[in-house]
């Protein structure tokens, strides 16, 4: 049901998905495959009508300040932030206005099978013993990789978070 995604997952594959299938010439080598996958065939604009920013949909400075406070972000570039938010809101409004299938329960909005087969007592007992296996390629074996190595700052095996991130955020 859920596949574990490795770190080197080819993300470009997702962005080159085409809505209509086309059979093209046979690929001769890996470079051709890579070149094909790296080429975009569509843009968001293809799918969405254009949206415009009007004065009415620019959020107030007060709203932006409140959002920045909640997000723990610095109170800077308020004008710029208002415009960015307005842009995003217009985009979301456009999305909301697109026709959707209202019969689907929002609880099932998942990128996986929506109605899985119910798990029986035996299924779970079996799954449990299978899940005890650790996958080294997912870093699941204790001590098999240096966890903090990839962080810029670390100390005696701990990650380090500077004060501002955790305390005094108000």
């Amino acid at each position, binding site marked *: *049901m*859920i*596949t*574990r*995604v*490795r*770190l080197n*997952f080819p993300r470009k594959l997702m962005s080159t998905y085409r809505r209509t299938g086309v059979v093209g010439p046979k690929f001769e080598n890996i470079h051709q495959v890579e070149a094909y996958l790296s080429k975009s065939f569509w843009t968001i604009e293809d799918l969405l009508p254009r949206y415009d920013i009007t004065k009415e949909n620019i959020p107030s400075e007060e709203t932006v300040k409140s959002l920045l406070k*909640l*997000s*723990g972000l610095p109170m800077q570039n308020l004008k710029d932030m208002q415009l960015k938010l307005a842009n995003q809101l217009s985009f979301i409004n456009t999305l909301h206005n697109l026709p959707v299938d209202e019969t689907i329960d*929002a*609880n*099932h*909005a*998942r*990128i*996986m*099978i929506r*109605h*899985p*087969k*119910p*798990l*029986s*007592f*035996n*299924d*779970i*007992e079996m*799954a*449990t013993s299978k*899940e*005890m*296996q*650790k*996958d080294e390629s*997912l*870093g*699941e*074996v*204790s*001590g098999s990789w240096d*966890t*903090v190595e990839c962080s810029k700052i670390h*100390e*005696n*095996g*701990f*990650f*380090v*978070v*500077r*004060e501002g*991130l*955790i*305390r005094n955020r*108000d």
Partner: protein
Amino acid sequence: MIGRRAYGTRLAGQKFKLLPEYKLRCGLEIHTQLCTANKLFSASTNSPFAAADKPNYHTSYFDVSLPGTQPLFNHEVLLLATKLSIALNCDVNLNSQFDRKHYFYGDQPLGYQITQHYSPFASNGFLRLRSIFDDIDQDSKIIEIQQLQIEQDTGKSVYKEQDSKSLIDFNRSNVPLIEMVTRPDFTDLKQIRSFLKKYQNLVRHLGVSTGDLETGAMRVDVNISVNDYARVELKNLPNTSSIFNAIKFEYQRHVDIIRNGDAEETLTHSQTRGWNGSSTVKLRSKETTIDYRYMPDPELPRITLAEDFVPGVSQLMPELPDQVLERLMSAPYSLSLKDAKILTINSNSHDQLYTQHQLQQFYLDTFKMYQQQAGESFNHKLPTNWIIHELLGNMNKLEIYLEKVVEILPPEEFSNLLMFIHEGKVSKASAKLLLFHILNSFKESNFKSTSSLDLSSLIKEFELDAIEVVPQEDLRQICQGIIDDLGDDNMIKGIISGKKKNSLKYLVGQGMRLSQGRIKPHLFESTFKDILGVKW
């Protein structure tokens, strides 16, 4: 600050008392770490406490939120969560789901916690407290359980004030937790204390958690309201004393606010407060409420369970602690509540030489064998006294684990020892020496002594067996010696005249002590009477 000091001083100086005109209502929110082998959404090892000296050791890519990684649900969690739900009389939701709770914090780099907000795992349960077992003032008190939800633990942060930074360890990240929420049904502190004990014992008994407060395997938040004003949620309560001191402090604070006529202004909106060791301090109020932006987790399927799942887990359930206590307190065991609890109520197992399960099993097996051997004349107190008091005492003195004890004294051997005492072949005093000797020599052999235990030979070897026939002359000599050493003519006269009949027992006791119980008391009694010419 002045206000805080006043509360602290008053609490320290006076015994806390609930006032009848200020009604306390409390609810509990308990986070319990499940002791599964692996973590909740990865197969890395779930060992947040044991690896405290190795930070970030039990961490997969997902546990530290590396981009591109995804959660994979550990189904073992379902077995444990279902056991706890059944024990708490909850309805298990056959179609629950995981949701994301968004907040920004250094120990949660994913940016959200995976929890169950919209459709939790179980709900509508209860736990019954009873005065007979739980030391509450009411005969019985039902505490309703609102819900149980499965969620992930966060990493652990250690704040280093000097350097203005926090050190983060993700060994605890993604460890499975059950968040259990009760209804605000508690009306006094005794109920809360007994509920916590009962719940802690239950999770240990079911083997779903170590239940230790000191390691953070069990963490308690309290919500409190007085006279139905808005509730205050108390967080950061690391141990039992903080929990109760914080409740007492907060109750007093509410009472003072209401008395001063400030309740309408101060107590109409809920608040979150922490405990700093001497007073509660405001963490969040209405103005700073966090919007968690809950949403169903799109990377995890719903947990859909077939109809056979809950009945299947029910069959794995052990007898629950209250049922065990009831059984042990009735015939044939007829234990006192105190002794039954020693066999049933689990303490934290770090510094204990046995688990309650091991000890109870040893007791039951020994009891059964002794009962078979002794037949109708069996004495139900003998196994209790010799296991719960003598054996445990010796184990603690010698620091021997029960699992070692059963290597040299398995239930059938222990039952044989009880039979020697039962039949009067050894006195209690001699049996005590014998038990200590057996355990001590086994320990001194570094638990390697392979020769099988032969109680009869040991008793003979150390001359511990009861002396059935004692030459009359020897006995007279011992008794005369006791009378001479006593040198108390008044007592002797009292015995002879019959005015101090009980003093004869004192003399017999001295004889028993001298002979280490090997000579029967009635022999001493008749000899003393003979020497002193007692006519009564």
